[in-house]
């Protein structure tokens, strides 16, 4: 092992990229809280936050500041270490997924080809699943360590919900992977750019299932049972206060952002600007339009997430499980089989 033989420029490049991606996703998550409240307001014929700063734009800062200055309460009978570990895990897993999303094409800076992607690993999508399945632990550990029946119950609900919907999510993706033949997100995007159509055209049902599962994985309404404010007293983060609560809430928004970015990448062509031929643009312009396209798609999807949240009522728990196991999984299996048959037929 020769650690000094590392490509230092490469390491620095990736470090910078990681810093940028993390800070950007934090800022977006911050403003997603603001956007959520605005969308909720508009849908309910209200204004939403509009006091802090112009149009209430400083509201997320004010909220964050408030959370920081709140008293930090650690319940007496809780498991201290795990109680702190819970929100940390939630935050960590939320951030980790961003590593494999290709945020843009390749750009040449100072003679180096730089990918706007932290790591192009050949098992990209599986990595997402791995991290998502880790995300459950944040909820479970947090809920259990609070030493509170409601928290525990909500944590169990959350974990079983996440596991159930992960299955359908994986099955819906298998159909997509049959078409692309690659697990790397970069390859998937490049196929969508060079081919004429985005993957949603080939996989509308797969997209639908994936989208519903993404809602459930992010604990978003109508699947927000783990944190059902009105039923389980805030669910698994009932005992949390101050910034630890903030971490849990924040992780939800980061999750939402990341999963929207992944949906955009998988089904909507990633950084492919529609109706524009990227090859004709010069390097930097192509890159910027690509990044803008990806962010535009992501924001639209985030809006849809919020729109759904403020339209639909919460599922009952048995309805949730019914939908997952009896609705989405058979549908995903069907989609998989049909796609496989068609893929086999066209290949011959």
């Amino acid at each position: 092992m020769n650690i000094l033989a590392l490509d230092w420029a490469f390491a620095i490049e990736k470090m910078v990229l990681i810093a940028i991606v993390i800070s950007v996703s934090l800022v977006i998550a911050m403003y997603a809280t603001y956007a959520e409240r605005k969308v909720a307001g508009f849908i309910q014929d209200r204004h939403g936050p509009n006091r802090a700063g112009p149009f209430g734009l400083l509201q997320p800062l004010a909220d964050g500041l408030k959370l920081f200055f709140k008293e930090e309460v650690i319940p007496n009978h809780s498991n201290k270490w795990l109680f702190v570990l819970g929100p940390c895990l939630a935050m960590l897993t939320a951030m980790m997924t961003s590593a494999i999303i290709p945020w843009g094409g390749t750009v040449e800076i100072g003679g180096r080809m730089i990918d706007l992607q932290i790591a192009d690993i050949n098992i990209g999508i599986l990595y997402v699943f791995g991290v998502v399945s880790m995300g459950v632990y944040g909820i479970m550990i947090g809920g259990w360590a609070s030493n509170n029946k409601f928290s525990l119950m909500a944590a169990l609900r959350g974990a079983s919900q996440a596991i159930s919907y992960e299955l359908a999510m994986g099955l819906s993706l298998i159909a997509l992977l049959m078409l692309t033949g690659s697990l790397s997100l970069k390859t998937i995007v490049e196929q969508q750019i060079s081919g004429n159509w985005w993957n949603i055209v080939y996989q509308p049902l797969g997209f639908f299932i994936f989208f519903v599962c993404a809602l459930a994985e992010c604990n978003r309404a109508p699947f927000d049972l783990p944190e059902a404010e009105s039923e389980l007293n805030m669910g698994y983060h009932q005992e949390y206060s101050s910034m630890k609560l903030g971490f849990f809430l924040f992780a939800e928004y980061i999750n939402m952002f990341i999963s929207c970015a992944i949906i955009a990448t998988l089904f909507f062509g990633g950084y492919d600007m529609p109706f524009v031929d990227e090859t004709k643009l010069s390097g930097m312009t192509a890159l910027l339009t690509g990044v803008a396209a990806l962010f535009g798609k992501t924001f639209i999807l985030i809006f849809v997430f919020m729109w759904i949240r403020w339209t639909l009522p919460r599922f009952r728990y048995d309805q949730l499980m019914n939908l997952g196991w009896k609705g989405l999984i058979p549908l995903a299996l069907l989609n998989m089989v049909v796609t496989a048959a068609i893929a086999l037929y066209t290949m011959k």
Partner: protein
Amino acid sequence: MLFWFLTVMALGSALMVVFSKNPVHSILWLIVTFFSISGHYVLLNAQFLAIVNIIVYAGAIMVLFLFVVMMMNLNDISSPLKNKWLKFAGVISGCSLLLVLIAALKDTGTMQQEVLLNTGKIGLINNLGTVLFKDYVLPFEISSVLFLSAMVGAVVIGKK
């Protein structure tokens, strides 16, 4: 160097699994163990195995373990295994498992070369798929039937 780090982590957390008083802590240490094992897989250039190990074991099975432990509300006071003979039997079976593993693994000298040079290609998803569905089709399918029967059995028990 990374290898040694991962090894120490794996062994240390595995020991913590055994010595933790609190069953929940044991499970969490077990998850850490799985992670370090996944790290070893990555060193073997077997990313697919690494991530599947995380998804299936650390992600799904451990969650079920946690479920059970949390629901049963075990804590350090009511620790089982007070029986001396039971402990003895545990040690014996553990040692024999170790023996079997050593016997199975002592002939893997040829693999070491590949591991050290970081050239192993067997763990990549394409190669793995080809091997699974060409050379090992029968065992693969048999194991899937086994899983299916287990699922059916679970459903039957659940329906009762």
